[in-house]
C-alpha cells in the first residue's frame, strides 16, 4: 500500500481572453489582488479558434497568459476557478462577459485547466468545477491530447507554458514560497 503524500505545490497559470485591450489592465489588477504578482506575462496572442466565445464577446478576440510568483496547492484549483468566475462577473455588461478567465495549474507532469463543464475525459473536483487534463509533459515538451483546446495545442502557448515550467523548476529549487489566495 502506498502512503498518501501531499503533492508539490503547482504554478498557477491564468489565461485571459478579451476583445477590448483596455480591459487588460483592470483585469490583470484584479488577478494580482487575488493571486499576487505575476512572474511571466505573454504578449498578445491571437485567438480565433472558436466562435463560441465570439458570439458572446465579439471579435477579434485576443489572449494573454499570466503565471504567478506564489505557488498554489494543487487542491485549490476549484477555489481559484470560483474566484476567477467572480472576477469575470465584475466585467459583465448586459449579461455578456467581456473578459474570459481560464485558470490552470502547471506541474512538471502536466497542465490542467479548470472548467465548469462536464465532459467524458474531465474529473470532478467539487464545487461545480471539473479538471481538464489539457497538456502532458513528455519528450521534453508539452504534448496536446485529442481533446486539447486548439489554441493550447499551438506553439506560442505551449512555448509560454514550457518557459513557465522552467521557472517552476527554479522556484522549487531556490525559494520559499507563500501560498497564493484571497
Amino acid at each position, binding site marked *: 500500500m502506498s502512503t498518501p503524500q501531499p503533492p508539490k505545490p503547482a504554478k498557477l497559470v491564468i489565461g485571459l481572453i478579451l476583445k477590448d485591450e483596455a480591459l487588460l489592465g483592470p483585469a490583470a489588477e484584479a488577478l494580482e489582488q487575488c493571486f499576487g504578482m505575476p512572474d*511571466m*506575462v505573454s504578449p498578445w496572442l491571437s485567438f480565433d479558434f472558436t466562435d463560441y466565445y465570439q458570439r458572446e464577446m465579439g471579435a477579434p478576440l485576443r489572449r*494573454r497568459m499570466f503565471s504567478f510568483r506564489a505557488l498554489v496547492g494543487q487542491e485549490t484549483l476549484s477555489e481559484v476557478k470560483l474566484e476567477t468566475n467572480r472576477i469575470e462577473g465584475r466585467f459583465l455588461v448586459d449579461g455578456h462577459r467581456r473578459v474570459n478567465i481560464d485558470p490552470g495549474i502547471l506541474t512538471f507532469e502536466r497542465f490542467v485547466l479548470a472548467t465548469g463543464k462536464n465532459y467524458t475525459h474531465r474529473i470532478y473536483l467539487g464545487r461545480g468545477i471539473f479538471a481538464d487534463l489539457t497538456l502532458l509533459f513528455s519528450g521534453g515538451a508539452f504534448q496536446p491530447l485529442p481533446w486539447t483546446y486548439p489554441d493550447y495545442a499551438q506553439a506560442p502557448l505551449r512555448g509560454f507554458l514550457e*518557459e513557465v515550467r522552467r521557472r517552476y523548476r527554479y522556484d522549487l529549487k531556490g525559494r520559499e514560497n507563500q501560498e497564493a489566495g484571497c
Partner: protein
Amino acid sequence: MAISEELLEILACPKCKGDIFLNEAGDGLVCEHCRLVYEIRDDIPIMLIDEAKPLDG
C-alpha cells in the same frame, strides 16, 4: 546564448504588459516603456517588477 529570440515572442513586461527586448550583453530583458531591465539568471528570465533594475542604473 541560451536565451533564444523565441523568448521575446512569448514574454511581455509584467508591469506595462508591453514589448521587451534582449539587451546587448544578452543577460537581461529590457522594457523601454518602464525603463526596467529584467535579469536573466541561470537562463531563467526573472520577470518580477520588484527585482527588476532601472535601465539607467
